């Protein structure tokens, strides 16, 4: 089965430079025939390459607003990170009213669902249902990173749906009943800072099918959101969520909402990998909760955002502090049995063993030996000219049959020098007939 990826390449724009291959956390990119190629099985859709590409050749496939016309009822579920994209003089209500004016009938804040998820996780923690360290499942890129690189930690991932998915389920269910329309006629659109979320909708993690019908990137609608802003006093009241849920947009926000002491919040893929390595080895026994986010500062640093992530984080942090950890609803008025049902994962996460060299361990071992031998003879400069991120990766590609030694320009030059030397040597060899004549003269 083909695996859908949001992160893709615009072949026209790609210059074949090697910027992206160096920063991919799963070494999923190679340059071939002058263009970057993404290895599907390895890509976790973190969007790091989108950020790194100086030619904007990496992009996230998202949906367009045109898709709205396919549905009778149109609902926007904005990610809390959207609120960080505007100056603090613009109220959340103004942002939501502007969003509504793009053609939506209803809005349900993902931040509100984040508050519900907070309470669900809190409850599971209190009941001792979570394996420690409990790992947040909020960042889909980190969940996939764990599948690829840290399979031993899969059991620690909190098996609760993301606020996005729960928001979609709640709003669809409610509108279906309230309006008496078929749920197929209700289109729920996530307003996203993130490419990995798009992939999650098409290839869900933990559930069979997503209730989200489309994902629209913040960056593509940002200009229209700015133009459509209306004065505060003309806005209808759409804002509901408290800072507790909105805080999920920044690194550490989930842990703050959970009111935990022994937590570790890490942002940026590279940092997340380092800490997961320590967690997998059992080196951090005190940590109760781990929140890792692939993007720097958290979702506000997503590849589909506009504002500088630190500036956006500042605004969200202010909202978190203002909320003092309160919820926007009364806990006793929530139908928890229903919400819990909507939040439960039904599918088990399995490791994605994409790093192994062969399905047969005996053959894999032979390949490792071969690889080490090849690696020893490579220059070790990790220059990337061969199209692989490092000399080690080239050695690996060679044993996988995806490259050869002379992809390395240094090896090629060495070989040319040897050839040139032998040519010179040969050219100095004089045929005996000529040689004899010269002797006589």
């Amino acid at each position: 089965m083909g695996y859908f990826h949001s992160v893709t390449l615009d072949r026209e724009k790609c210059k074949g430079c090697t910027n992206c291959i160096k920063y991919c956390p799963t070494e999923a990119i190679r340059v071939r025939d002058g263009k970057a190629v993404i290895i599907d099985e390895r890509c976790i859709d973190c969007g790091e390459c989108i950020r790194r590409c100086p030619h904007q050749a990496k992009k996230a496939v998202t949906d367009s607003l045109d898709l709205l016309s396919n549905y009778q009822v149109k609902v926007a579920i904005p990610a809390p990170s959207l609120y960080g994209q505007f100056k603090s003089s613009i109220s959340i209500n103004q942002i939501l009213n502007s969003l509504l004016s793009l053609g939506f009938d209803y809005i349900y804040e993902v931040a509100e669902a984040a508050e519900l998820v907070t309470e669900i996780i809190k409850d599971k923690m209190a009941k001792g249902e979570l394996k420690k360290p409990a790992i947040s499942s909020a960042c889909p890129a980190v969940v996939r990173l764990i599948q690829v690189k840290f399979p031993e930690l899969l059991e620690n991932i909190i098996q609760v749906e993301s606020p996005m998915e729960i928001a979609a389920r709640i709003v669809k269910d409610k509108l279906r009943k309230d309006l008496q329309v078929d749920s197929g006629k209700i289109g729920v659109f996530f307003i996203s800072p993130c490419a990995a979320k798009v992939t999650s909708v098409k290839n869900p993690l933990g559930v069979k099918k997503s209730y989200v019908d489309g994902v629209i990137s913040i960056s593509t609608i940002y200009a229209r959101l700015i133009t459509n802003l209306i004065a505060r006093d003309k806005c209808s009241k759409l804002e509901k969520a408290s800072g507790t849920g909105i805080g999920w947009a920044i690194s550490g926000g989930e842990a703050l909402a959970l009111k935990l002491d022994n937590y570790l919040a890490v942002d940026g893929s590279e940092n997340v990998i380092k800490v997961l390595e320590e967690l997998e080895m059992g080196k951090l026994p005190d940590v109760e909760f781990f929140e890792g986010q692939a993007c720097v500062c958290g979702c506000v640093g997503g590849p589909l955002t506009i504002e500088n992530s630190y500036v956006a984080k500042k605004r969200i942090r202010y909202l978190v502090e203002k909320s003092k950890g309160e919820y926007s609803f009364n806990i006793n008025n929530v139908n928890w049995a229903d919400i819990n049902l909507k939040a439960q994962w039904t599918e088990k996460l399995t490791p994605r063993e994409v790093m192994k060299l062969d399905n047969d361990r005996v053959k894999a071992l032979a390949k490792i030996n071969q690889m080490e031998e090849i690696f020893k003879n490579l220059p070790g400069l990790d220059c990337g000219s061969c199209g692989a991120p490092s000399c080690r990766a080239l050695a690996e590609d060679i044993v996988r049959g995806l490259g050869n030694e002379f992809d390395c320009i240094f090896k090629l030059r060495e070989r040319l020098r040897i050839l040139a030397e032998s040519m010179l040597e040969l050219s100095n060899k004089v045929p005996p007939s000529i040689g004899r004549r010269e002797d006589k003269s």
Partner: protein
Amino acid sequence: METANNNLTMEFTITAGDFSTAGKAASEVKRILGQIGFPPAIIRRVAVATYEAEMNIVIHSFGGKITLFITPRKINILCEDNGPGIADIDLAMQEGFSTAPDKIRELGFGAGMGLPNIKRCSDEFKIYSEVGKGTKLEISIKLVE
């Protein structure tokens, strides 16, 4: 009988007191075992045992060597150090016992879990030590399929 091609030997020299590189052997081993395709649980046991052994050599010895012999069904880890040696092995094997100085404990190491942890990860575990000479560990982790 195995030919040289379907087993792999990895050797690491460990420097006493060098905390900055401690853990390198374990992460390198983890990467290689993943490429060979060992089950995650086995990889974790080997990585933890290697890591703890590295730390022991860094903290307690005057330097040493860790050698891994990897075959498709079994991983042997040999750890040899030059060091003070262990006077009472039974005591050293007890959880919580450590001779690590306070300075090291303040760093969060020396909790006395190293050797017991290695043993827990092993299918076979042998320890030899001679005071004034050094310590040798022979660890074996097997794949049951």
